């Protein structure tokens, strides 16, 4: 990650693993603890898989930032899917329109320091995840 940015195209289940690898590398690069790293990687796994399953695929970009001497990794995942009609509902534990446990979105939110979601029928879904090194 020479310039601090990596992008992973999300088209298939295999790409989710690739996104996790990239997330892991970025968190290792900023010197995050293994617990923080594991949590972030798991959150990325959830969001990337949602983009593949429900969002007709998309892209996730990782960026390393620094604020007040603390480094962090920001992941922005965007897809071209139908969007989420009721975001609050989708964030509720146990809610799934597919075959999942319905814990991906809510879980991801609890696993990171910053979680943002924007979704509309026309633009698809964008999820931003951020975790600091400490």
């Amino acid at each position, binding site marked *: 990650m020479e310039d601090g940015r990596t992008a992973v195209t999300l088209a298939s289940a295999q790409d989710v693993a690739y996104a996790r690898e990239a997330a892991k590398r970025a968190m290792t690069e900023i010197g995050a603890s293994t617990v923080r790293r*594991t*949590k972030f990687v798991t959150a990325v796994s959830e969001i990337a898989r949602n983009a593949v399953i429900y969002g007709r695929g998309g892209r996730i970009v990782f960026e390393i930032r620094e604020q007040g001497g603390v480094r962090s990794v920001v992941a922005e995942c965007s897809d071209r899917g139908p969007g989420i009609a009721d975001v609050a509902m989708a964030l509720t534990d146990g809610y799934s329109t597919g075959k999942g446990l319905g814990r991906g979105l809510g*879980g991801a939110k609890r696993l990171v320091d910053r979680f943002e979601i924007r979704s509309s029928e026309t633009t698809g879904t964008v999820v931003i995840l951020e975790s600091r090194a400490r």
Partner: protein
Amino acid sequence: MAKEVTTGSVLVEDFDRVLSGWLKVQASENVKRTDLVSAKESEKQSRDLLAALADVAPEAATADGFDLSDAQWAPVREALEEIAENRTERGVSAAEMGWFIASLKQPFFEILHEELGETSAELMREIWSATRIVDQVALYAIETLVQKREAIIERQRGEMTEVSAPVVKIWDRIVTVPLIGTLDSFRAQTVMENLLDAIVQWEAEIAIIDITGVSTVDTLVAQHLLKTASAVRLMGSECVICGISPKIAQTVVNLGVDLPNITTRVDLQSGLAYAFRRIGVAAGER
């Protein structure tokens, strides 16, 4: 018993038995890929790797938390590099590479079982130590293969998504399956089927799923574990999941996933202790 039997001593003193046992498992588990790697090549690679292990492991594997990247493991790494080089060229997948190494557990377990059969506490300790060595070697082999491949096509890292999971009978009525890699692809289904087949074949009462080699437990993996555990239960057996590290435990709690009615243990050793107790073999769980 004149001398203490350990994984290390088995490697050195029963070298030929381990090797021939391994080659036999390779053939039966279909991990040989004779279409890609000739039997002769496979035998040479297996022998070289075992010889390197026999040289290094008895000394180096005794320390707790040994690391394959330590200097003393260099001969093993070299043997693995050579095997990975050869197999990358032939197009062997990461999962197949994992199987190839992991199938080494079976002969180890058989010999240890034979030699230590009456003293299950020692057997447990040595099964644990053999597992640690073989798993570390398998992981290193997969990583090396993937790295070599990455040099060829960057995207081949996706191969890591294939999980490698040979089911091994550890004791009468106990089977164990180590998951190495991740479960994104369709292989997750195969793992479950293999495990259920093994339960029937060996009339197993306890199935231990060792997830030490799984780096991320997300909702998909959790769901897979839940499904597998209930299928195992439906067959009248019990499922024990071990290898849940503190960082994974914290993550799973944050995810909000519950693993109800599933016995979990921190590592394979305590998983085995539990299993022995359940089937009435005195080993004592500490």
